[in-house]
């Protein structure tokens, strides 16, 4: 199909969809007046039932924790897939140097840059941990904290350069964090089964409202997610940066028998 015809086809389909979309939009509960009772019920029940203040975290880590386990595994799955696809072609050597496009000047890092990067990297990492720790109390949680913590690794790259960075951030450590976090989550979900309660039952003490470690099992789940997300995104960034290093003699497997 040529491009104009494809556009005509798409336009026709979209025009057919316009009245349907309008129909649905007009019939939806008016914006700002939701009719669903699920959310309000959560807001009413959970603070007293679980001693936490962040309802989003309560939904994610307790009431709908099973969803989060699935999502967590999805993250692991996507990252594992990405890693397999990158490493499969490249192998696992880590001696190469950073890639460089000719004609672009390489500026030596000043001491100030190194210092600033070290400081900001530490601060970012701490901020990530802080965000994750306060997940059940204030906005934040393992997901956001993990992403922030992982991005601090990138600041290390900026400050320390490729080689030093590779020495600090190890692929295997990231693997272990990623898989380990998700594994602990699955185990934490299964443990209540052993004592005859439904999976993911919150059997730990709930703690005090507004306290850092309130929410019982939620704290554990939150921590597992933090580990796993840090590992996943760290690994992802690591493998992507590997792709930009100087390609030594990358083998392209399916060219071999052609």
């Amino acid at each position, binding site marked *: 199909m040529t491009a104009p015809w494809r556009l005509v086809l*798409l336009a026709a389909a979209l025009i057919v969809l316009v009245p349907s979309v309008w129909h649905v939009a007009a019939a939806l509960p008016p914006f700002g*007046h939701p009719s669903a009772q699920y959310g309000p019920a959560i807001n*009413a029940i959970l603070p007293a039932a679980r001693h936490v203040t962040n309802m*989003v975290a309560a939904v994610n880590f307790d009431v709908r924790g099973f969803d989060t386990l699935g999502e967590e595994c999805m993250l692991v799955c*996507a990252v594992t897939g*990405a890693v397999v696809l990158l490493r499969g072609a490249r192998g696992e050597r880590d001696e190469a140097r950073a890639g460089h496009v000719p004609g672009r000047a390489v500026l030596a890092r000043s001491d100030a840059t190194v210092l600033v990067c070290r400081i900001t990297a530490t601060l970012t990492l701490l901020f990530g941990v802080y965000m994750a720790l306060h997940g059940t109390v204030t*906005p934040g949680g393992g997901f956001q904290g993990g992403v922030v913590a992982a991005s601090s690794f990138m600041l290390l790259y900026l400050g320390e350069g490729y080689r030093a960075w590779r020495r600090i951030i190890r692929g295997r450590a990231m693997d272990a964090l990623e898989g380990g976090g998700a594994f602990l989550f699955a185990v934490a979900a299964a443990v209540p089964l052993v004592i005859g309660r439904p999976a993911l039952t919150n059997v730990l003490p709930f703690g005090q409202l507004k306290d850092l470690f309130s929410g019982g099992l939620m704290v554990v789940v939150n921590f597992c997610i933090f580990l796993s997300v840090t590992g996943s995104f760290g690994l992802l960034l690591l493998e992507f940066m590997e792709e930009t290093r100087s390609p030594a003699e990358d083998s392209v497997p399916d060219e071999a028998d052609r």
Partner: protein
Amino acid sequence: MSIFPWLVPAWLFAIGIYGIVTSRHYVHLIGCLTVCQSATYVLLLSIGYAWGAGPPIFYDHPPSTPAVDPVMQALVLTDIVVGAAVTALLLVIAIQVHKRRGTLDPQRLRPLRPDQ
């Protein structure tokens, strides 16, 4: 006017599709896919929004104050992180395609049709 928030997701989805259909670069196409994805986030959060309600976090105000729907937020929250990972997976595929074919133009990349 109260229909406007529902039209924004439809618009985002439609232009994302338009971008995908007309794209001539895999990486650009992946960017367009994220537009389609953001449509779902906007829709879900709009569904959960309530006038005059605060965030579903009862740290500064007592638990009895009206708050927006936390369920929709929880659904979107996890999905954003996963969405990024799927985007990464697609980018990896794009990088590998480029290594083998030297191009990222979808018009020239067709599986199992080597001579086109």
